């Protein structure tokens, strides 16, 4: 098992720069979440990684070597635009794909049985794909990405269109594969899911990686926010505290921002609150991935606005 490296990929479609120096790597056993608004370049990156698109420059490496056709056969890929032969039976289709990836007939059959069981479509093996519901087609598509025991997983929106049960099954499968050492990249708009599942996250905007790191790293900011619930404290009790700004004061609850101070500086806030009232709750408010994402997207909008102003 080895690292999957995406190294300075550039890609333009005509005048549109789809990717600008896209760079990240996924370690063995790591689940990497790929997040960004529509058209940010996630799908382009994945398609390049699978050799379906050619980059203008840059390279995709696995185990230190360029990812060529032979190695690509060991990758499990789920494209954004789902694709299976609509008139082919589920079992036949999965067996065919497994064999294309180089599995023997017997192994392919066993793998098809295993994955259709796991993903809950075992009873539909004899049906044509077009006769399945959209959700079940999605499960078959996942089985298609997993059936050849891939050493790397690249999944474009694997969770879209799945019911909660299937989401749980899929999350379990990804964790299990990662535990077996398979580096996994997936993109998703379900940020809570990404937050729960991923070891590291990359946020892309306009073809560029704008934030990259573990969830903890991304949530760590220069300033910290604290929420205090002190029912008996008079309004404005926190206004004069040194080094803090009140962001929100709503009845019992006050949210303060503590600028730049070191560890322990928040204790001053707690003591000030205790001086006025019993404290029911005192917690750090950390930004969620959704907050981070909104922040990035709004920065995008601001940048776009700035460009428009210049143009005008």
């Amino acid at each position: 098992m080895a690292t999957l490296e995406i190294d300075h990929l550039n890609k333009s479609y005509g005048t549109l720069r789809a990717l600008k120096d896209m760079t990240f790597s996924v370690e063995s056993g790591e689940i990497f979440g790929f997040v960004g608004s529509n058209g940010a370049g996630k799908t382009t990156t994945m398609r390049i990684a699978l050799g379906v698109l050619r980059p203008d420059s840059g390279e995709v490496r696995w185990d230190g070597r360029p990812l060529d056709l032979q190695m690509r056969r060991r990758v499990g890929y789920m494209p954004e635009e789902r694709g299976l032969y609509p008139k082919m039976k589920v079992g036949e289709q999965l067996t065919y794909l497994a064999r294309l990836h180089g599995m023997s007939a017997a192994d392919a059959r066993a793998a098809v049985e295993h994955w259709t069981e796991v993903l809950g479509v075992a009873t539909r093996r004899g049906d044509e794909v077009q006769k399945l519901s959209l959700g079940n087609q999605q499960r078959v598509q996942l089985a298609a990405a997993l059936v050849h025991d891939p050493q790397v997983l690249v999944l474009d929106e694997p969770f879209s269109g799945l019911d909660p049960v299937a989401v749980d099954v899929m999350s379990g499968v990804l964790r299990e594969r990662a535990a077996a050492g398979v580096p996994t990249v997936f993109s998703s708009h379900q940020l809570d899911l990404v937050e729960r599942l991923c070891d590291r996250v990359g946020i892309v905007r306009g073809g560029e990686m704008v934030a990259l790191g573990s969830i903890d790293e991304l949530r760590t900011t220069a300033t910290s926010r604290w929420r205090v619930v002190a029912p008996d404290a008079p309004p404005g009790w926190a206004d004069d505290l040194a080094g803090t700004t009140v962001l929100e004061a709503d009845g019992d609850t006050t949210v303060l921002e503590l600028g730049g101070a070191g560890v322990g500086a928040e204790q001053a806030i707690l003591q000030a609150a205790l001086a006025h009232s019993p404290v029911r709750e005192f917690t750090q408010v950390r930004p969620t991935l959704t907050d981070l994402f909104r922040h990035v997207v709004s920065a995008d909008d601001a940048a776009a606005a700035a460009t428009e102003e210049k143009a005008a």
Partner: protein
Amino acid sequence: MNTVWQVAAREVRTRLFAKATIISTLVVLVLIVAGVVAVKIIADNDAGSEAERVGIAAETADLGPALSAAAESAGYPIELTETTTGDATTAITDGDLAAFVSGDPRAPVLLVEDSPAPELLTALTTAAQQYVMSSAITDLGGDPAQVGTDVAAAAPTVEALSTEETEFDPYAFIVAMVTCALLLFTLLQSGSLIAMGVVEEKVSRVVEILLATIRPAQLMGGKILGIGIVGLVQLLVFGGAAAIAAAATGLLDGVDLNLGSAFVWMLVWFLLGFALYAVLFGGFAALVSRQEDIGAVTTPMIFGMMAPFYLAIYLVPNLPDSPVVRILSQVPFFAPFMMPVRQAFDAVEAWELALSIGLCVVFVPLLVWLAGRVYSRAVLNTGGRMKLKDALAR
């Protein structure tokens, strides 16, 4: 190679055993057998038509043998019955007799319903003249039989300077037509199967998964190979059915024709024609993204196939040896249709055959390169129709 084989095997499995293929194969099969039987029936009617019943009066009976012989050689066999004018009139009205001959053998009377068959009239004239002649010879003291033999022997011998046979052979023509029609049918069918297969993969987007695993050339190569096998099987079934039906009905009995070699050559030309046309169908179909747009790509190709087909069935039988035909039949796209016809008419030299096969074999890799280039550039392009120029560029 194994990968190409996997792709080909899938095509064979899904095409050969598809309901549509089985039904259309059966329909064509029935048409072929019915066609052969129909040809046989028509041929029988033509050649061994039943003898017409002709009545003859007792006083005219001397004309009988001569009349029968003359009618037979005119291709109008008759069966003579001695009868009377009264009976004959009723029989003719009832349709039991075709005609009634009576009166003096020197000036016989031919009684018919409305008008006599020209052959019968000629035969009767000949018979009467012969009778007069024989009587005259007898009167002069000669032997009519001896004179008859001498007259029959007095025929010229033809000495032609050219030894080439230019006779129109209807059986060669039929074999050539059947070969051409089967070639056109199977090539069109497999061509459109390939085009539809390529577009189906584009439309269902399965091509993206496939191309993440295998090369475009492997995918296209496997598809063409698989559908080629399906086409070949169909051709074997059709050609075999035609040959078996012809043998069973005795259609080609006594005809100097080597069906076995005609069949083998048909397969050779199918393979070459398939290699030429199929690759182009595959490559160009990748340009469109929706099933509805297939026509825009396949229609020109179908017309491109019709031209050599019509030239082959209209021009070649009339001028099998003309320079135009000789040159055109060397052109790769024309050869698969024109050569079988020339071969059926025995109007082709061995070196010409070798040259045209050689040219096809040289041309195929060029086409494969061209089609492969178009295919691999266009197959992942979604949205509108891609221009050929754009696909070839870069």
